[in-house]
């Protein structure tokens, strides 16, 4: 028993659920209407954002109200390259560039923010995000101001797509699923690694974490940057689906939506933000098409959620599974 491995391997009881979900994702274009498929694409892009956001909230104990800034960085990277350096406008270039720029922005912002926790951290992230919003809004000649910027259809290794619906329901969907799966596996590895455990130790008690030798601020910064990159990539992928980007994505209101969708799915579970992002996308759009008071529906949902399902949808599902298992065990006796 001398040498033990870290627990939390990807190969566990959940493996078959993950595999079934992947198979489902791959055949969904055959089952869903183009409209619903595009909604799912929005959801998957936001799921990456949710995974990144939850690395900070669930695993590091930091609530950010400014993730819109990194989302905007990813989306505007795509838009600006399309506008100013069109010769670089291909998917294989845009994604690494969005990673690079979201890395830079999240590193700088993170450097400032991780020195603080709780409300001070939340307010700092919110303020910096509003700074990005103001820049995008005011620098009209560069960013298009409140009109935003158009997102052209990117080429992929020389392949050119003429119609956005064809691009979105064909190659791009599978590319998005691929990036999502890579992001999912990467984040799963991160949270189960010694680094992920160190983040949880910091969240539990930062003084004690320091007393076992953990570099608290540095690890928080690493988590912040990884979270920012995930959000930036999510923003870049989202922009291809949306076809247009405006400064609103850097506004704290959008950052609030990220918080909302993670709570909706359940931040206590790794899979919660993914469920939350997809459900939120459908909920928001159907609520918007149902009534102009869609925010009312979103607000009511949040109240119901907090009161009846504080662990979110994923938490509710896990509880249900636990209850069923308990029932089975009891009936087995």
């Amino acid at each position: 028993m001398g040498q033990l491995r870290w627990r939390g391997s990807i190969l566990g009881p959940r493996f078959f659920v993950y595999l079934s979900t992947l198979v489902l994702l791959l055949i969904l274009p055959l089952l869903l209407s183009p409209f619903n498929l595009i909604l799912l694409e929005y959801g998957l892009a936001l799921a990456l954002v949710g995974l990144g956001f939850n690395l900070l909230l669930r695993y590091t104990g930091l609530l950010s109200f400014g993730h819109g800034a990194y989302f905007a960085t990813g989306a505007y990277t795509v838009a600006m390259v399309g506008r100013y350096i069109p010769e670089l406008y291909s998917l294989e270039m845009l994604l690494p560039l969005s990673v690079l720029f979201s890395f830079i922005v999240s590193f700088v912002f993170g450097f400032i923010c991780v020195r603080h926790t709780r409300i001070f951290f939340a307010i700092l992230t919110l303020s910096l995000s509003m700074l990005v919003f103001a820049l995008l809004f005011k620098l009209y000649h560069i960013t298009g101001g409140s009109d935003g910027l158009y997102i052209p259809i990117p080429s992929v290794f020389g392949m050119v797509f003429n119609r956005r619906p064809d691009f979105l329901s064909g190659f791009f969907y599978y590319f998005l699923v691929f990036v999502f799966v890579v992001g999912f596996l990467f984040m799963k590895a991160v949270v189960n690694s010694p680094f992920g455990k160190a983040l949880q130790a910091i969240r539990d008690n930062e003084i004690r974490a320091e007393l076992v030798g953990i570099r608290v601020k540095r690890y928080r910064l690493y988590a912040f940057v990884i979270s920012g990159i995930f959000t930036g990539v999510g923003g870049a992928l989202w922009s291809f689906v949306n076809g247009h980007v405006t400064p609103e994505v850097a506004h704290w209101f959008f950052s609030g939506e990220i918080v909302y969708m993670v709570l909706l799915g359940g931040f206590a579970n790794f899979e919660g933000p993914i469920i939350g992002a997809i459900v939120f996308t459908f909920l928001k759009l159907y609520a918007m098409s149902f009534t102009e008071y869609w925010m009312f529906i979103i607000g009511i949902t949040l109240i119901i959620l907090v009161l009846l399902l504080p662990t979110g949808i994923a938490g509710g599902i896990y509880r249900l599974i636990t209850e069923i298992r308990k029932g089975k065990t009891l009936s087995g006796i």
Partner: protein
Amino acid sequence: MTLLDIENLDFFMGSTQILRSVSFSVNEGEAVCLLGRNGSGRTSIIKNIIGLYLPRSGKIVFRGNEITRMPPRNRVLMGIAYSPEDSRLFSELTVEENIKIAAWVRGEKNDTFNFESVFEIFPEIKKLMKRKGLYLSGGERKMVSIARALALSPSLLLLDESFEGLAPVVINRFKEALKQIKDMGVTILLAESNIKVASLVSDRAYIVERGEVIFEGQPQEILQNEKLLRIIGGG
């Protein structure tokens, strides 16, 4: 050889002076006890040594290096480990992870950690490995907390009220464990309020009263001295 040297330490909390010109030393391989009533300043001395509190004046010298203003993490890396009074663990990490995290931070990058030395001292931990820190009893928590501190391979182990709240049977178990730790070459500085417990494991003892060190000697001397027993509340 002196491992830890405290010279004229003054520590204030706000405007209240907690420690007054505290001086003492701990030699390599010793088990030394800081005895005193609750509120006498024992925990403050321990927290000054690990760096959670900063003194207003005085010097803390460890292995010949002054560490008075050094951040806690650097002191840990120099070989000082601390098991606090409440022994709180990282609640969502398993016992195995709680112990390994210290070893990993120390630089064991190959994802392996030899638990044999830990199991030798606390065989009870073997069956707790997969349990989360949140679901341990007080005694189990103390064991894991000490094991986690040992995973840092310290040369000085600071224990704050490690025996507090333990059943007599468990106290005997802990006494044996501390002897084993000492035999491994780890120097122990123990903050305790119970002289009977302290006398079981300590080579020397200091009595701390109202933030001052008022006595230095063998634990047996204290046990035989009515006046000293009254001061530490054990009479």
